[in-house]
């Protein structure tokens, strides 16, 4: 696991400053979506071996939620973007 994460706001920081929320690959369902959609969102994980997207919270830094793309087998970190920026890009 890479010990350093490049926060877009704070620069290169040790990973101990971050809390990991988990899977960022899927969007939150609408409030009135089906029970199945909510079950999948809350409980089911793709759990890939390889590239994965995760929400990391920079709790000991800027306190922004970030989306980290990294590899679960090699531990290589590919990119780190602010979660709002990530959402904007996804919406486009």
């Amino acid at each position, binding site marked *: *696991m890479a*010990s350093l994460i490049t926060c877009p706001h704070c620069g290169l920081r*040790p*990973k*101990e400053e971050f809390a*990991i*929320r*988990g*899977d960022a690959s899927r969007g939150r369902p609408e409030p009135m979506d089906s*029970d*199945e959609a909510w*079950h*999948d969102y*809350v*409980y*089911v*994980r*793709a*759990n*890939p*071996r390889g590239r*994965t997207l*995760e929400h990391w919270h920079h709790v000991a830094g800027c306190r922004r939620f970030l989306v980290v793309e990294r590899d*679960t*087998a*090699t*531990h290589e970190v590919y990119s780190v973007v602010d979660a709002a920026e990530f959402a904007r890009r996804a919406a486009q």
Partner: protein
Amino acid sequence: MRYSAFSIVRNALSGNLNWKPQWRQPQPKSHYDVIIIGGGGHGLATAYYLAKEFGVKNVAVLEKGYLGSGNVGRNTTIVRSNYMLPGNEPFYEFSMKLWEGLEQDLNYNVMLSQRGVIMLYHSDAQRDAYVRRGNAMWMEGVAAELIEREQLKKMIPFLNYDHARYPILGGLLQRRAGTARHDAVAWGYARGADRHGVDIIEHCEVTGIRRENGIVTGVETTKGFIGCGKLALAAAGNSSRVGEMADLKLPLESHVLQAFVTEGLKPCIDHVIVYGGGHFYISQSDKGGLVFGAEIDGYSSYAQRGNLATAEHVMEEGVTMIPGLARVRVLRAWGGVMDMSMDGSPIIDRTSIDNLYLNCGWCYGGFKATPASGYCFAHLIARNDTHPVARALRLDRFARGYAVDEAGAGPQPNLH
């Protein structure tokens, strides 16, 4: 291979060159009644109980590496049944009872040592929580003892009782709990299963699951296609990958958990001691090394190696609890891939495919569960019916709102 005092003498006289393998190395047959994917503790125990208790003998266990190369050889060897929730405790107590008879059953020395597991508490609130847990254990017929500070000082004098932030006020003790030699558990089950006719096929990786008309007909492997009547998954950290081959979507994340062992010392730690200020557990192996570990690293991972920052954190916890540990040198550290479920409890269940069975979600409690997991999984496969002690461990419990969340951490796998 049978062992006796006579065989030790005879083999010593012939230079120990004539020991026979404990299990065969068969080529896969074209078809089995049951194929189990995963030759770890749970897969081997399942095969053993299928053959011995449930009369299903045409069974193969497929292991992608060598036998015992996964988590069964990577844990801290602790066995205990001090759980709180009614969905968990009967299952783990069933496992504890199987542990107590395992050496006789397998005729194999798994070095079960019921040295007692003590979980320390450091505040009045934590004491209350442990009293509650102890009472919950008694409700299921499992003995638990609350050990107060003065009594604990006589039992375990070397702890840091007067730490400013985490003073040790006492502990909850399960005397029947302890440790077992993890490799011997794998070998014992493998030999037992092999003797009952189970084919254990090592270095055979499953690459696909073949289905026709909605049921599984066999598996594609690195040794060719093998047909089966029923398919059972016991792939631990790789459950999501194997499940994907049958389009199963599972409530799992794979995380790395580290463990450590020190240089050999003279006997000094008589129990398994669990620190309550963080989460740290330590025991001494029969060889003298101190075996210890703590929590998962916190990020999803398939690499069987951990992060140095976590190792540092583990050492800090250990030294906080036992200052003398600072003088001991660590020999080795290793990581295992844990199939963390969304409530911290395992899954033993059928799937949406009629003849496909699932055993996963062991988080970092898989070793102690090995006998019960194998027994209950075999029961499910053979009779198509859930064993009574595994009734709460269903795959659909999340959708139904019956999560078995021992830690009360919610659907956040890295917090269990």
